[in-house]
């Protein structure tokens, strides 16, 4: 095998790149879930377990912890989902893919 052939064999194929794309998108989604978990659980734990619940602050007709810890992150999550799904997820269509190890 000459240098040219060896380099060609090492070069990432289109299918490998596609699988990496799938993995990258999956990692972004899991990372986003983790961020939302920290936001929601952090705020709700800090402000949602009031010692004197009768004095709970009400914002927009709801308890303040619901607005900050559920409503706001839910809106943010919706905007992120729209942005990610419509503008960041790729449209690579089904094609012949290099077999994975367990297929070879």
């Amino acid at each position, binding site marked *: 095998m000459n240098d040219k052939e060896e380099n060609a064999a090492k070069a990432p194929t289109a299918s490998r790149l596609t699988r990496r794309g799938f993995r990258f998108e999956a990692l972004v989604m899991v990372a986003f879930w983790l961020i939302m978990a920290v936001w929601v659980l952090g705020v709700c734990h800090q402000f*949602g377990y009031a010692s004197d619940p009768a004095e709970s602050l*009400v914002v927009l007709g709801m308890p303040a912890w619901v607005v900050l810890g559920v409503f706001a992150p839910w809106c943010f999550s919706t905007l992120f989902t729209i942005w990610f799904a419509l503008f960041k997820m790729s449209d690579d269509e089904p094609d012949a893919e290099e077999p994975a190890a367990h297929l070879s």
Partner: protein
Amino acid sequence: MAEQSTAALVTFAIYTAVVMLLAVLSGRVSRGKEFVGEYFLGSRSLGVWAFALTFAATNASGGTFMGFPALIYTHGWSLAFWIAGFMTLPLLSMGLLGKRLNRVSRETGAVTIPEVFAAKMKSDAAGVVATCLLVFFMFFYLLAQFKAGGKILSTLLGGEPTFQAAALWVSERTSGLPWFGDASGEYLLCLAAFALAVVGYVVYGGFRAIVWTDVMQGVVMLVGVVIMLALALYQVGGIGNATRKMAAMTPPEHCDVRVVVSEPQEVDIVLPKGSWIKTSADTVRLAQSTRIVAGDTESAQVAGLRLTARSDIDAVSMSSFDAEVSVEVSVEVLEIREYAYGAGKAGVYLSNPGPSANSGLGFLAISSALSFFIFWPFGATGQPANMVRLMAFKDNRTLRVSIVTVTVYYNIIFFALLLIFCCGRVLMPGMEIDPDRTMPDLASHLTAAAGVPWLAGLVVAAPFAAVMSSVDSFLLMVSSSLVRDVYQRHFRPDAPERVLRRMSYAVTTIVGLLAVVMVVNPPMYLQDLIVFASGGLAACFLVPMLLLLYWPQFTSAGAIAGMLGGTAMHLVLTVAGYLTTQQFSPYELLGMNPFVWDLVMSAILAWSVSIMTQPTAQPKQGLRP
């Protein structure tokens, strides 16, 4: 009540007719197409609306429209925290597996989840294990959904005179029969009507009929919820007003009571379940029917609910009770059982952990909240019914737009339900005697107060649309596994299309009938079985499917170990929970939902066995599509 039930009966009749029409139309569209791929997967041609709404509707079961409202009513704003995991559900459950699973299933020609494992891993054993576990868990799920369908329908139609006459007729004919004789005529009639409709359209139209009816059911759910939201907010005077009133509320008290009259009467006095009795000292709602026999002055001891909040007591109208009984009655409270958490505590409906009748820790401890934030999105990702839909969309653009559509759809549904039933807490006290009736009763209350009682029919159509859209998917999944993964794969790989068609129709009908016969007398703990089955399915399939799609070194032995490991952990924690509490509830290690530990066990075994074993070398011959 009768007016609402009549509206529900008319709605159900129209609704069933439309569902059947859609099944017939979808059957015509399916003609001339390759049978297996069309019947079980709609020829992988779903567009945005069909894919998004079938996905959304399948995820929304009876629990969404009966159980969730009951929980909001009973525990207040804590349910916002409880349901928060849904904010990432569409992105994760559709995005994490969608593109890759769709591609793999197209490449391998797989139309069922076990077939994906068998074909991709080149292993019959992986397919067999997946089939066994899927059918095992899915059948429990199917039983529970059939029961929910029968119960919801009997709840909705209960007061309708024609229905009562028919139920009486059924009751008389079945009273001497073994097995059937123990069930009420109302439940039997509703179960039969519900099953006939669902099995009928699934058998006739297959996956495409399910998707088309899911689209209609998704629209019905949305319209019902939006109408209820507008009526609830208007009648309570805005959500701010509802929250302020909830801040002053204290939980009611469960109690035992005896109804008394000052003088013996000449005829029996019948007090139906739900009757209010208001005296200067107590305001009580009867949780059971009771009777004061002629010549007597008091009833037997029955369960009741005693209100403690001033606003609740003021909201109780005496008119419904006075209409039933025209004599002066009073109530003697014998024994009071306070809430284990939140008794006498104003504001408990506004804050976590929320009031609880049984747990001293309240409804939602922080560890439970974390568990649910994990369980909702990842549990949905691991449901085979969702995975099958991911194999059926036509292109990646459809997936991307559908993720957005389902996200917006769930935002509307779940926020609306939260607001509606917080308003319901203020508008309609005393539903703790039968929380599952909160949805239909509030629909009736809101529409009657607005002067449009006929609208109740449309509003209460949402819960049975939700159950129908779940039960049809589960039914087809079980039958597709039996026909495709058992019969065709192991007994007759070269079966002609004509035989597969007949087998599919027969198996779907038999599975449906078997499930119906089994839920005539539902086994104990059936509601807990829903949790058991859904958790078990996700624990079994999520990690192996993720690794199959994203990890090239994953082996068939690893897949089997992952599936069995998650299932074994699920069973061990369930048994441990039973031994600890003598109830069918799983053991919560460190306060976490067992699903979390199931996933950990599944991941450890799938990974460790994969690195210790070799990938399957021999290619496995695929099935004829």
